[in-house]
């Protein structure tokens, strides 16, 4: 169960977290790839644009450069000194023109100056070069086209390659004094690193100038890369690659976009051009950083998201788990489980409903259990009463049939006794009569068992009933060597019972005990009879040390006709009769026993309460105090009256009680004020006698309290005092019109005061 539950739990979290994490990771991947491709495309486009711009500016700068050179050099032959030189034929004198050309080269800051005569294009008439390594002859050779252009168009320019060096050349015609063409001046400026740097500044791209597969100048990379540059350039210059494409390139760990261009050269041979490299290392790095940041942030977000989701899932499932645990407990019958979920959402509702359900279940179950219990008890009682009722019918018939012969027996025996007979016969007759009387009583018992007898109820002393029962059996008990130990509560309240029936109960039980012990006597039999007050009940406990009752028989002892005695010895009616009587009185009888360890019968009878007393006065005396017909206490004036005596002295209490009991009063005693007030609150008393001086509450205080709690009784209060009454007390008694008996008083005196008080009250 636990395992399954855990599996479900895990799978629930997984169900939530896995898709969430997967979605987030997917989102991240998509985002990263989108960003990647977008940015890459963007900066590729940008780089392409940059390169296009760069190319454009290279082209433009070349053009501007050429134009400016033309402007710079166009007027050179018109300078007076050169004009003079050429006009006066100085050009024909080699040293002179050499000096002039040198001067020109220095002044004009060019690398090569060449004078070509119109007569002989192939060989320079004069030349000046900044570098001795530069072969003027070669220079002359490559410059021929531009010189020709100068002759034809008035000016010419070109980019030429001489001895692996690149030159921008401008050629201007030289004219004589009469405007006749003498030749051409050709000025060459080497294109080198400086130009590349300038172009780099203009284009913000790395630039590599190449010619015939060789790097002329480069702003990028170390010389080791020159071969690589040349290779790339030549790939661009291959025939058929007219449209210049942008290529990606990695050089020395740096990423570039690359394109190439061609310089215009009059001589078609030789590929002169440039490579443009636009670095995108920076945007690439930015992209990488962006990616890293994106990944980092997203990773954190995923972690955080997962944690949050986990937390939420935990939070959501916590009430469910609590519910599950509780449901499990409830399923196993523990209804005390309550789900402690306080959230105000569906879970909270569910928990509340669950708790309600548990509560209902619990209540239903309790109801069910109590109902079952009641049912069981009722059933048992029903069974018992059915048994009794069946037997009752039978017994009633038998008893009724027996009554007639018994009447005869009794009647005749009495008649014979009154007749003149011998004393010995008289004694026999008396025995017959008594036996018959006893039979009559048995029959009466049977009839009462069969409910043919209207039970009478009167206030009876249980103690007396017990004692009389024991007395009745004293002969048999003595002969059976059984001692009866009684421990009777002297102040046991009287109970409203049928004394005959209860006496029968005690007789039956004690007799049963006696018989059991007699049959199986191993030691001296002891029967202990105890009476006591137990709550609102009077309890009589009868304990014997006989053989006890077998466990299997315990539940049957109250069944009619159940007996363990030999056939003919017991009717099996005794205990079942007891059961019926006690239950009739609203009481209860039970037995506890173990085989070999004696048996304990406990009889509980309810005490007569005030209501009962009021409602059923007819059982004792009617309102006028006149005893009912047939009541032997008819003559006693105190019958049905209850008197409360309050005194701390035992002797006085005993004397007063004895005196009043003889008159038929029911006497309750209290040894102090508090218990007296309690009794007064519980019972209705016709009269109260109170000692004036006591420990605790004194007479006056009791009177004051009683006046508030029970005004009726307070009026019927007689004080008893042993002290000399002082003036204050006398005044109090006068005011309250109270009677006070002084000790010692005679019984006659006492009876008169009680009678007066009661009589005064009636009026």
């Amino acid at each position, binding site marked *: 169960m636990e395992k399954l539950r855990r599996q479900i739990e895990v799978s629930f979290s997984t169900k939530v977290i896995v898709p969430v994490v997967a979605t987030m990771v997917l989102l991240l991947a998509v985002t990263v790839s989108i960003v990647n491709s977008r940015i890459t495309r963007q900066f590729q486009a940008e780089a392409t644009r940059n390169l296009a711009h760069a190319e454009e500016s290279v082209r433009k700068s070349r053009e501007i450069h050429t134009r400016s050179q033309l402007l710079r050099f166009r007027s050179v032959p018109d300078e*007076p*000194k050169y004009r003079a030189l050429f006009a006066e034929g100085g050009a024909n004198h080699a*040293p002179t023109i050499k000096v*002039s050309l040198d001067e020109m080269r220095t002044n004009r800051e060019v690398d090569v100056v060449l004078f070509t005569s119109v007569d002989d294009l192939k060989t320079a008439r004069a030349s000046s070069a900044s570098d001795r390594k530069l072969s003027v002859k070669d220079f002359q050779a490559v410059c021929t086209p531009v010189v020709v252009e100068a002759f034809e168009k008035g000016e010419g320019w070109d980019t030429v390659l001489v001895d692996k060096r690149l030159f921008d050349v401008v050629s201007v015609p030289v004219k004589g004094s009469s405007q006749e063409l003498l030749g051409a001046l050709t000025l060459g400026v080497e294109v080198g690193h400086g130009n590349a740097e300038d172009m780099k500044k203009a284009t913000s791209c790395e630039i590599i100038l190449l010619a015939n597969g060789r790097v002329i100048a480069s702003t990028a990379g170390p010389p080791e890369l020159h071969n690589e540059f040349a290779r790339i350039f030549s790939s661009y210059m291959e025939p058929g690659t007219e449209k210049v494409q942008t290529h990606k390139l990695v050089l020395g760990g740096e990423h570039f976009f690359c394109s190439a261009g061609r310089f215009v050269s009059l001589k078609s041979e030789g590929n002169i051009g440039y490579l443009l490299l636009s670095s995108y290392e920076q945007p690439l790095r930015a992209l990488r950083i962006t990616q890293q940041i994106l990944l980092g942030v997203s990773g954190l977000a995923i972690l955080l998201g997962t944690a949050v989701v986990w937390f939420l899932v935990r939070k959501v499932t916590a009430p469910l788990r609590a519910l599950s645990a509780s449901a499990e407990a409830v399923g196993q019958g523990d209804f005390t489980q309550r789900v402690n979920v306080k959230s105000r959402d569906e879970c909270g509702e569910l928990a509340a409903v669950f708790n309600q359900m548990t509560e209902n279940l619990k209540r239903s179950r309790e109801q069910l259990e109590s109902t079952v219990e009641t049912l069981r008890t009722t059933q048992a009682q029903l069974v018992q009463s059915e048994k009794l009722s069946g037997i009752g019918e039978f017994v009633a018939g038998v008893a009724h049939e027996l009554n007639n012969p018994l009447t005869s027996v009794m009647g005749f025996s009495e008649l014979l006794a009154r007749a003149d007979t011998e004393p010995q016969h008289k004694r026999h007759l008396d025995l017959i009569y008594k036996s018959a009387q006893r039979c009559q009583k048995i029959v009466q018992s049977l009839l009462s068992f069969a409910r043919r007898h209207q039970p009478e109820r009167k206030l009876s002393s249980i103690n007396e009933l017990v004692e009389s029962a024991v007395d009745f059996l004293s002969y048999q008990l003595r002969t059976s060597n059984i001692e009866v130990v009684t421990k009777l509560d002297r102040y046991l309240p009287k109970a409203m019972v049928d004394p005959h029936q209860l006496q029968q109960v005690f007789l039956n039980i004690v007799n049963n005990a006696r018989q059991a012990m007699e049959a199986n006597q191993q030691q001296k039999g002891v029967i202990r009879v105890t009476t006591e007050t137990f709550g609102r009940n009077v309890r009589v406990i009868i304990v014997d040390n006989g053989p006890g009752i077998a466990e299997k028989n315990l539940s049957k002892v109250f069944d009619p006709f159940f007996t363990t005695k030999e056939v003919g010895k017991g009717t099996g009616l005794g205990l079942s009769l007891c059961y019926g009587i006690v239950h009739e009185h609203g009481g209860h009888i039970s037995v506890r026993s173990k085989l070999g360890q004696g048996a304990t019968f406990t009889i509980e009878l309810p005490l007569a309460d005030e209501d009962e007393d009021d409602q059923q006065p007819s059982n004792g005396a009617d309102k006028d105090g006149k005893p009912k017909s047939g009541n032997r206490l008819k003559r006693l004036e105190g019958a049905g009256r209850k008197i409360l005596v309050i005194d701390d002295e035992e002797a006085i209490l005993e004397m007063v009680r004895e005196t009043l009991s003889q008159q038929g009063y029911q006497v309750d005693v209290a040894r102090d004020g508090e218990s007296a007030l309690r009794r007064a609150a519980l019972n209705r008393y016709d009269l109260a006698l109170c000692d004036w001086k006591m420990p605790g509450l004194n007479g006056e205080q009791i009177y004051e309290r009683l006046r508030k709690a029970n005004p009726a009784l307070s009026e019927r209060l007689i004080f008893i005092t042993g002290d000399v009454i002082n003036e204050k007390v006398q005044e109090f008694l006068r005011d309250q019109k109270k009677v006070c008996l002084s000790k010692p008083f005679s019984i006659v005196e006492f009876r008169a005061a009680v009678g007066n008080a009661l009589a005064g009250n009636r009026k």
Partner: protein
Amino acid sequence: MRFYILTLVMVFIGADAIQAGTIVGTVRAEGKAEAEKDALCGKYDSRQFKFVERINYAELRDFLVFIEGQVGKVVPPEKPAQVKTERIVQKGATFVPHILPIVVGSKIEWPNNDDILHNVFSYSETRQFDLGLYRGNGTPIQFDKAGRVDVFCSIHSRMSCVVMVLENPFFSMTNDKGKFVIENVPAGTYKFKAWHERLPSKSQEIVVPEKGEVKADFVLGITGLPAQ
């Protein structure tokens, strides 16, 4: 050469007039210290002086001192033999000497000692000429009018020289230390002038004693510039 001329003059004058004195003195150039300083730094290190040619006054040489106007009777040369012939040589694309004072009527030869061709010409009012491109001796030029003649080479713009054609022979170039001596000057009061190619000239009245020396010192420089 100069001394030779001077000796000749002295002999000539000595024969004519016995009473003659000597002019001695120095010429030096001096810049305005303040201006120089300002030009080099501070608030004047600005566009205003940016293209001003810096002159190291202390190193300026080639001062010429001479008496303005005629001194005594000028005798026109009667024979070509009497005509003084001076020479300015072209060597290393330079005219040597750079300044040449001559008496009116003197001739100057223009030999080209270089390997390359040179041209000698002047557009000055005093004397205009153009010798064309040549090598070797070239053509001598006679100067019959007093005044300044600036001479150039047409194909070498850095080549130049100045010929000062003077009315009397009492002139002298200062030596390396800026000193000069003019002897046998007839006694009298003269306007005595100090000249330099690149500086404003200054003149002072001097009285040449019949015997003895008169001292005349000059400090040339650009003065009277507007106060800054």
